[in-house]
């Protein structure tokens, strides 16, 4: 079992109180699994990703454990996490593409980054990796501004995986790209797993159709908790959680026209995580809500590899 997260709780400290961004999350990611992580913005996807790597100053590890390849990660202790970061768990943060230092040539930046990790750069290996993602070695002599969005994103992917991490977390890496670059970047992620450079992956996205293309499983979050996790095909064709169902049915597919089939969104908005309501957090938007939903539904397995947090799905 590659990654096991158990009852993880991470809050943000704010002036108005604690934001319960991750409120009791348990799941596993198997060796070789690419798990898509989907949900509306604000549902806690990035918080989950960051929790497995580095809590920023305002994040607090309130409870729960994370185990990677049988070793418990000290997620609450940033210094102790140093040993694992980048080599065991690596992240491509949201917006990292725009965060590349504009005054550094790509090659210099990569060398500096490795040096800061106490690793030496093997130029031949670096070139091999660039080639693998479809970039020529020339990019090393260029500045970030000279590269297209898709090229920058692939540079970041190469850099984040240089030490062959066991787990890679890719946070919204395709969101700012055009369809053709999205496809190239998504395929590159697939290639990293298929060549064994990365063992498992969590691909965070708000675009289910995109992650469906490459993911083995998809996990859907809602308001700081898990709603559903299942094989990708099952999420798309037979979702059980009412939220997943509404989410899937609100997606316009190529060929669907408003004149023929009017789709609808999900009325309402997610609750504040500062003071979330008791019970099922989807309750006030859920068309199936009934008395029992005042009590929190457990995230339970309803079929092999398929877990749902909903009283109606069990």
């Amino acid at each position: 079992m590659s990654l096991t997260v158990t009852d993880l709780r991470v809050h943000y400290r704010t002036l108005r109180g604690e934001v319960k961004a991750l409120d009791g999350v348990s799941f596993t990611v198997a060796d070789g699994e690419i798990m898509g992580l989907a949900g509306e913005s604000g549902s806690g996807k990035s918080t989950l990703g960051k929790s497995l790597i580095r809590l920023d100053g305002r994040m607090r590890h309130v409870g729960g454990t994370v185990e990677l390849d049988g070793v418990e990660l000290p997620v609450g202790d940033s210094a102790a996490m140093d040993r694992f970061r980048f080599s065991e768990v690596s992240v491509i943060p949201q917006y990292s593409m725009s965060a590349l230092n504009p005054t550094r040539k790509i090659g210099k930046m990569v060398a500096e980054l490795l040096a800061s990790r106490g690793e030496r750069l093997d130029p031949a290996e670096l070139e091999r990796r660039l080639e693998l993602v479809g970039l020529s070695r020339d990019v090393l002599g260029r500045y970030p501004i000279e590269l297209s969005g898709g090229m920058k994103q692939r540079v970041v992917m190469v850099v984040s995986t240089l030490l062959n991490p066991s787990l890679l977390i890719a946070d919204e890496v395709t969101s700012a790209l055009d369809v053709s670059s999205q496809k190239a970047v998504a395929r590159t992620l697939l290639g990293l797993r298929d060549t064994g450079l990365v063992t498992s992956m969590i691909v965070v996205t708000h675009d289910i159709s995109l992650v469906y293309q490459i993911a083995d499983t998809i996990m859907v979050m809602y308001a700081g908790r898990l709603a559903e996790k299942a094989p990708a095909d099952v999420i798309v064709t037979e979702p059980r959680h009412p939220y997943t169902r509404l989410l899937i049915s609100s997606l316009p597919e190529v060929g669907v026209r408003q004149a023929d089939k009017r789709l609808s969104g999900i009325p309402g908005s997610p609750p504040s995580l500062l003071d979330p309501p008791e019970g099922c957090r989807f309750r006030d938007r859920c068309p199936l809500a009934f008395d029992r939903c005042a009590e929190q539904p457990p995230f339970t397995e309803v079929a092999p590899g398929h877990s749902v947090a909903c009283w109606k799905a069990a």
Partner: protein
Amino acid sequence: MLRLDGVSKIYRVGAFGGRELRAVSGVSFDVNPGEVVSLIGESGSGKSTLGRMVLRLTPASEGTITFDGTDVSAIRSRKAYYRQVQGVFQDPFSCYNPVFKADRVFAMIKQEYFPEMGRAEWRDRVESSLDGVRLDPGQVLGKYPHQLSGGQLQRMLIARALMLDIRLLVADEIISMLDASTRIDVLNLLGDLRARGLGILFVTHDLSLGNYVSDRTVVLRRGRIAEMGPTDRVFGNPLHPYTRTLLDSVPRLHTKWADEEPAAGQTPCPFHDRAPDTPVRSDLAEAEKEHYVACAGSGACPAAKETA
């Protein structure tokens, strides 16, 4: 209603503006009342530049843009033009000042266009405009931007544009920052506005969104029209290799991307290898009624004119 005729835009770039960049070249198309025209292309293809020229935010370098037959660059009163034509852009958050309540965007329209109107009448107007974009006035008025969702903020901007009985809306990537759950509401709204007779130029890089709402589609590639026509024809029978590549890249829900890439090899050029008697309009061939397609481009067609 809106007509672009041979419109080009040349930017001066580089040190001291020494280099020319052709962002848009010889683009011609119309937007009629009650019609959604989607403008599709990858980033850098010139979509926003076209939208900005229509909104008179930047002048065209060549060609003309006319609104009801009048050259927009000759309309002296900007205000008169903006009463009829408004734009909404990608990032709703950047249009609001976090220090002020979100509904200040309406107050600004009042100051500019309706300084005389009484409070009660104005309030009614704001409320009916919000109603038109399916927002509950009680839920959004008096709130700060951070208390509202991106979808709500975006719909408020559309409501603001509707305060001025506009006839043409330029919507530039207004959906891309929104979550799937609210995206579709904004798209449906565009469809409803069309039904009320508004003309909409819907700029997007997402083909499935363009396909869902638009009547006609213009595919832009490197500033030029690659293909345009009725949306069902462009999507149902794409003729330009670029349109096909875009379509093949769109992630779909029930089908995964095809495994092998289509074999490169020489395929017939939809323009130069057109059937005899195909009508030609400038550098577009009318392959089917109202369905136009350009040359496949250098690399794909030996007859392609190399372009700067």
